[in-house]
């Protein structure tokens, strides 16, 4: 696959993030977007390796040298694309697999790899439960902000 970004030295974002190491994973909370992300081991390794000095080729070599298994540059790019989509990269990265479905990409890289593919799971953290919402109701309740979303006797209780 041609890669116009081969010469880039990807840089992970650190500002505005809260990072928690978990056994085999890394949790990242983005205070700007209010999203929490769970990076599996492969995604976390690539993210930590994106220091602005390493090239993608360097990251491949470090990944293998760390005993994680043999991978390709596409494998690393798959991680970087996901990190970028989730706002976890500092440098602007052009999508590597533009025009291809995620399924196609995963199939291509997955077949060539014995290593767990990089995966990032995300969700939006709830805002404070005590906000400016009124929890009285006539029939329906707001989706968040009240003890429940069920209107009983005029209150979302």
């Amino acid at each position, binding site marked *: 696959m041609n890669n116009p970004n081969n010469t880039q030295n990807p840089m992970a974002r650190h500002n505005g993030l809260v990072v*928690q190491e978990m056994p*085999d994973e890394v949790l990242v*909370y983005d205070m700007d977007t*209010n999203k929490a992300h769970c990076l599996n081991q492969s995604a976390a390794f690539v993210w930590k390796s994106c220091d602005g000095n390493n090239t993608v080729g360097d990251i491949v070599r470090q990944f293998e040298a760390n005993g994680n298994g043999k991978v390709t540059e596409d494998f690393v790019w798959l991680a970087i694309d996901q990190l970028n989509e989730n706002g976890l990269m500092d440098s602007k990265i052009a999508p590597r697999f533009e025009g291809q479905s995620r399924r196609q990409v995963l199939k291509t890289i997955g077949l060539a790899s014995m290593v767990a593919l990089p995966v990032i799971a995300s969700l939006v953290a709830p805002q404070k*439960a005590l906000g*400016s919402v009124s*929890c009285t109701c006539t029939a329906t309740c707001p989706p968040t902000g009240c*003890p429940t979303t*069920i209107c009983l006797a005029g209150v979302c209780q």
Partner: protein
Amino acid sequence: MTLANNENSQVALRPFDFECYGVKIRLDGNDQRVIDEAELVTRKALLNDIRPPTTENFDTTFTFTRDATGTIFLSHDCELIEYGDVPEYFFNHFNSLIRVAVAERAVDRLFIHAGAVGWKGKAIILPGTSFVGKSTLVAELVRNGAVYYSDDYAIFDREGLLYPFPRTLSMRADDENYTRFELTPSSLGGMIGTEPIAVGMVLLTEYKPDAKWEPQSLTAGSGALEMVPFTFSFVNRPDFSLGVLNNILSRAIIVSSQRGSADNFAKTLLDFVDKHVN
């Protein structure tokens, strides 16, 4: 519940100031009877685990304003959040709000919306929103010998140890209005936890009629992500919250599955814990 008008509006109003889990809260307003009722509700909601505040720098304030028609308006830090003219409903809701206010700000404690029991020295945690059957399952686990810790708010210290918050279990009848009623742990033949314990299992489940128990194991990271929506202080203190979640989950098994009725499922769950939790 009825609240008569103040007979003597010239009497100076006395706010109710207190501290709970390090959170300093003031309840004030324009009607002493409303403030007094709010105090009673607060004491019950927080198991009377409150003390006078160490300073008058309050973390948060609730203000009750009663108008000439009898409608009570509730503002939280100057923002109107509730009103009602049926005191019973109004204060039922306030009961939830005051616990949330403490849960979001508690110092050195993490509150998670979850039922919790102890079983052979380890905790089983059941995170979930209301109406997923937490209290029903907790009650059934207690009937089967588990030790009661909480039916709604599980409280953890920095190390991830679970502390008791043993309110009476808040149940809902299986009728069209989900009528509330309360159960004491002793009426279930159960005991109340007194000591902090480590978590053995986190179960992400909800009741579905005819659901099968098909437990799927989750990693600690995935489990933490699933628990974020139930973690009260997450947005206020993400670093503290994530640290505690890590301490809870890195020592526990995390399982996800729908479940059928609690009376059949409780024993299945305890057998599962016996097999899979050390």
